[in-house]
Structures are given as structure tokens and as C-alpha cells.
């Protein structure tokens, strides 16, 4: 792939622009380190934050459709870091591709242009795997994370539904493990790596939410992990909250995969607090 070919429309989404800026900053830094050009989608809006599950409300697709249309104009693939945005955009795109009537109705409401289904929605982790490759990642590693037992946590929305997300094997995901190995770390398999963290129940059913996120953390700890690696700001929030109040030796740091990459690449200024110890030594 030529350097010119490694340009992407980049959709940060609301969360990365506000409460998860560290994910955005580390993502941009490692992308740059790998020669990936991320062009922020101009005038972007919220993706909708929940994929519309009801068939009788086409209007809920307006938000994601606007983002897709904006990206289409750039002619590049649309890359995201937020797992929720990725899920909503990817599935909305899949839905509109297969429901041309709905797409036509939406186009009548959107003034900036028409949805034509030419944009490919990607997650940056998939871009790193497929367009950069693990060999190139390995070559970029400055400080291999040898001895780091990291639990790859996928959650739900990156993987499912597998046929629509086209991201990884939903029952046997590999991409985070492969990334961790490329960075010199040791991936730790744990049973709950693709189970729900509680998601938006943090708002509507906090008790249930806490039980789920605690179970994920404990499952990773039981498997011998020293850190949890995620690609979703909501997962990270929930897993962090589950451990709030625990004595710090019992806390498992939760890091974005981009922060782990930054640490291995020697970009310690964006690697986040989980790598603060390494940064200070």
C-alpha cells in the first residue's frame, strides 16, 4: 500500500471529543507513528449512540447517515476509534445498503448530499491489522512490553453481529491478542473477554451494570492479567467505575489499545496513567 493510500476520514464522535480525549490523542499519535493520515470528518455530528433496532422509525438513521455522507465526499474509508460509533455507523451503513427505500427517504431529508453507500466503515484496530500489518507494527516497537500480562477485552459491539461488523470471529476474536503479541506483551485469555460490561445500563440500571463490569474485571484478574485492554470508552468507563473504591493494589488498570501501542512505540506522553510507572523509570 502506498503512503497516499493510507489516508482515512476520521470520526472521533462525541465521547472522544469530551470525556475520552486521551483515547483520541493516543489514537492520533499512534496513527501518525504508523504513517496513517487521519482527516477528521468536517462538521460531524453524533452518530446516534444506539443502533436503531426498530424497523418503524427510519428517521433514527438520519444521524449516522449524515456522518456517512460527509465521509463519502472525502473518498476515503471512514475510520473510528469508539466501538459504539463504529457499531452504529457500520450497521447503519449495512442497513441502508440493503434497504434502498429507507435510504431514499433519508436522502430527502438531508441537504448536504445523498447517501450512496460508497464509504467503507472501519475501526482503527482493523486498519492497523489489515492495512498496516503486524510486521510493520513490530518494526515500530521501541520498547517491547515484555512480561506485560494484558487481558484483551472486546465487549460486545465491536464483534456482534459478526456478519455485519465484519471485524473478527465473534466467538474466538484474535485481533487484540495479535496486537499485544506484536507489541511484545503476553495476551491473557479470560472467559468474559466478549461479554457485556453493562453498557448504557450505567444510566438506567446502575446495580446490574456494576455487577457485570465487576464480573469482567474479576474474570480478567482470575486469569492472571495485570491490565485490561479495550477499544471502547464506555467499556473503559464501566470497568474503571467497577473498581472505584478498591484499594489500588487490587485495581486492574484499563487502557485503550492505542495507549498500549503508544507505550510500546515510546510515545509515553500519550500512553496514559496505566503506563505512568514505566514512564517515570
Amino acid at each position, binding site marked *: 500500500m502506498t503512503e497516499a493510500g493510507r489516508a482515512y476520514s476520521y470520526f472521533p464522535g462525541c465521547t472522544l471529543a469530551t470525556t475520552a480525549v486521551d483515547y483520541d490523542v493516543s489514537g492520533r499519535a499512534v496513527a501518525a507513528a504508523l504513517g496513517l493520515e487521519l482527516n477528521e470528518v468536517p462538521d460531524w455530528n453524533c452518530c446516534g449512540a444506539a443502533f436503531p433496532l426498530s424497523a418503524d422509525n427510519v428517521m433514527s438513521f438520519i444521524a449516522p447517515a449524515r456522518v456517512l455522507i460527509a465521509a463519502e465526499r472525502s473518498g476515503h474509508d471512514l475510520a473510528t476509534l469508539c466501538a459504539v460509533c463504529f457499531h452504529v455507523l457500520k450497521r447503519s451503513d449495512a442497513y441502508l445498503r440493503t434497504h434502498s427505500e429507507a435510504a431514499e427517504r433519508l436522502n430527502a431529508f438531508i441537504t448536504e448530499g445523498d447517501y450512496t453507500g460508497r464509504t467503507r466503515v472501519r475501526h482503527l484496530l482493523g486498519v492497523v491489522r489489515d492495512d498496516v500489518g503486524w510486521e510493520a507494527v513490530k518494526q515500530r516497537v521501541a520498547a517491547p512490553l515484555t512480561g506485560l500480562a494484558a487481558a484483551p477485552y472486546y465487549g460486545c459491539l465491536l464483534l456482534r453481529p459478526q456478519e455485519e461488523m465484519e471485524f473478527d*470471529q465473534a*466467538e*474466538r476474536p484474535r485481533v487484540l491478542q495479535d496486537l499485544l503479541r506484536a507489541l511484545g506483551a503476553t495476551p491473557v485469555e479470560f*472467559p468474559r473477554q466478549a461479554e457485556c460490561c453493562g453498557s448504557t445500563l450505567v444510566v438506567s440500571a446502575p446495580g446490574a451494570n456494576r455487577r457485570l463490569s465487576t464480573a469482567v474485571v474479576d*474474570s480478567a484478574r*482470575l486469569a492472571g492479567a495485570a491490565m485490561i485492554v479495550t477499544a471502547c470508552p464506555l467499556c473503559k468507563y464501566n470497568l474503571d467505575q467497577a473498581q472505584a473504591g478498591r484499594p489500588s493494589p487490587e485495581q486492574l488498570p484499563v487502557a485503550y489499545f492505542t495507549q498500549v501501542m503508544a507505550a510500546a512505540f515510546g510515545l509515553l506522553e500519550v500512553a496514559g496513567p496505566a503506563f505512568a510507572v514505566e514512564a517515570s523509570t
Partner: protein
Amino acid sequence: MSAAGSTTALVVGAGIGGITAALDIANSGFPVVLVEREPSIGGHMAQLSETFPTLDCSQCIMTPRTVEVGHHDLVRLHTYSEIESVRRSDSGGFVVGIRRRAAYVDWDKCTGCGVCQEKCPFKVESAFERGIGPRKVIYTLSPQAVPNKPVLDAEHCRYLQSKWDMQAGRIPSVDKQGQPASPKCGACAKLCPTGALNWDQQDTLVEEEVGAVILATGYDLLPASRLPEYGGGELKDVVDGLAFERLLAASGPTAGKVLRPSDGAVPKHVVFVQCSGSRDPERGVPYCSKICCLYVAKQAMLYKHRVPDGEASVFYIDVRAGGKGYEEFVTRAQEEHHVRYLRGKVSRIYSQDGRLIVKGVDTLSHRAVEVQADLVVLATAIVPRVSTPAVAGLFGVAADGNGFLVSGDEEMAPVESGAEGVFLAGAALGPKDIPETVAQASGAAAKVLSLFLRRRMLETTAPAGEGMRAA
């Protein structure tokens, strides 16, 4: 060949279906060519421990049949062989090309003494033992194998590999002193009392002309790796139904003791998961595999015989015990052996702290159920042999979307194929148990016999009824 056509039958597949058909035909005085892909005959029935609903030892009831067919004057056995080509002969029969794979053993010289197998220093995972036990690189499938002649697995043979590497120049063919090096090992050849090892043996091709064909190519199990949510192929203590048969079989790797593959411990709680891949049009196969309900009840019962203080739990959707004595058999498993039946599917199986966590449900008590198990048996779906559609195609027989053979009329002519002179039997048509397979194989043999007896009559021009006493 007479104008009436050949009265030799070809039977493809020497499981219990093929053996039954071959014996029915040969015992009526007609020659049979019996072709089997494996080194010896018997098919899956040779792997089974005991059979439902009578708990007869499978090996014991089948051995007389394998021996009879193996020694029958009218049966020409081609094992370790596959059908390579088929063309119609002038008389309306078939000329069939059969490729016999190189066994690297001259079976005419071999006495089946077993020394090679005993002395071979290399072990590999045995497909016959379903991964829970090893075999040697030169091997027979079982001590009761018919024919009791070994084959050599060239891919894993130290001698052949080093010999071929030398020939290809991948390793030096002279030693440090410059002397011609000889390939490593070769223990079998050195110890064989009859000099039967033949390192240069090649595949051989024979042609047989036959007048009718019975396809009885049998079944396989859906690979457990197709069920990643159950840890299939990854978790050692998640095994399939045939593997559990080997654990129960007196002739199996554990001599009939139920031991966990991972650590050899006696499992105290065994969970059986029915419909593992069956009745699952989304991710597995859409059909019901028919035999699992009964073999699971049997395996659970046999497990309780072996481990009386053990627990056996079965997840099911419907208990399909439609057959003579089958309902009563499952009832016995539940009432007398206290096998616990839970109505619901399992969603996930994973390993934690050395045990298996089975996440299931009981839709009757409305409870999600989490079971800690020591061993999980997946009743994986019955699928046709991968090669079945291709072999059938050679004979002009169609396979359905699932790969099973299609009868000309599934309801009214179940053993007849659409192709003239080609008949069908057994699980190659769809999942079925042993008695149904055996009855159907005899049914297919009847069609062949009807044809051949008519031909023989044309040849002798004497009606078969001649000499019959008047009413």
C-alpha cells in the same frame, strides 16, 4: 461378460451398512467388490463401546460380521482405497477405477503379527481414537482389525521422511565420513519377520467391472472446532460423542475407564450437550441428527455404571426417542440412573479454575443454569463424509444441500437412487441408527439381488422356480 450384464456388485463403504449389504449379496452367490477408505472395515461401529437399547458390546456383535465379510470367498475387499473413476460398461454396468493408497507394507507377505506396530518408536494422535489416544506411525485401527494388516503413515514416518529428504537433497545423503547415509529409524522393516515393509510402494490402480452399486459411505461428525462458543477444538475436556465412546470402550485408550483427557482424573460431573450444531440453521446444520438423544442417554447411563457417585446432566430441546424400546430406555436413564435432563440449549462453555463452566438454561424451571463440569460431551451434528457428494457424483447420484445422498423418491423408494443400477444405504442418506441402517442396507441388497437373480435366470434360461413343489 454375458449379454445380461455383470452380476458382480460394488459396495462403497464398509461400515455396518456396507458390510450388511455385501454379506446379503455374497451369501446369495454373487461376487461383491467392497471398497473402504480406511485401512480396515467396520466404520464407526468399530469405535463404539456398547449399543442402545440393549447395551450389547458393539465390537462383540460386529466382529462376526467383519470376520465373515473379510474371509468370504465371494467378497473382494479393497481397503485403504477410494473410487477414482467410473464409466458405464457396454453391458450397462460400471467399470470402476479404484485407487489403493500406498501402505508401504506388502500385505501378501504380512502375517499381521503386530511386531512393527509394537516396536515403532513414534506416536501420533489417532483419528480413530478421536484425539484422546495415540497410535503408532505404522498402525492398524484396532486389534480386531479386518484385514489385520498395518499401514504406514508416511507423513509422520521418520524413515520415509529422511529418505525423501535425501532424495530431494534437503538433507545430505552422505555422512561425515563421506559414506552413503541411510535414513533414520526403519525399526519396523528391521524387525519384520517376513520382510513385508516396502519403502517404494506406490498407489495402485485397479479396475473392476460391476453390474450394480450400493453407496454406503456413512457419516462424520461436525468438527467441534465449528463450535467455538463451546470451546470446541480448544478445551481438552470438551469432547464429542465418538471420543466419549472411545473413553467408554473396553478396547479404547483408557481401557474403558472414564478419565478426563486433560489430567486423567475421573470426572465427577459430566454434562452432555445435545443438538451441538444440529437443528441450528443459522450456524450449524438445519436438520436433527436423530441418533444423539439415544446415544447420550446410553453414554450417561454407561458413565453412571463406571462412576456411580458421578453426576450426569443432559441439556436437550426435545428428547427424540422414537424407536423400539427407545422411550423406555431414556426413561430408564432418568428414573433408574438419575441422569438429570435440563430442557434448554447451552450458550457457552469455558474453563475456569480447572473446571468447565457450562452456561445453559432450563426452560421448564425458567432458570438460567450454570453448571460446573469436569467433562463436557458435545453431541455434535451428524454430517455426511466430506467426499460423499463427489463419489456419488461419479455414479450420477445427487447430494442434497447438506451433502447427503438423495433417493429417487425419498418416501416411496428410499434405497433407489436416480441412477440406474445404483442403490443407497445408511447414514450417507441422512442420520440414522444401526438397526435402521442395517434394514436399509438389506433393502438395497434386495434391489441388487432382484436384478442379479433375473440376470442369472436369463443366463441359465432356467426359471428360478424350477424344481419347486406344487402347491
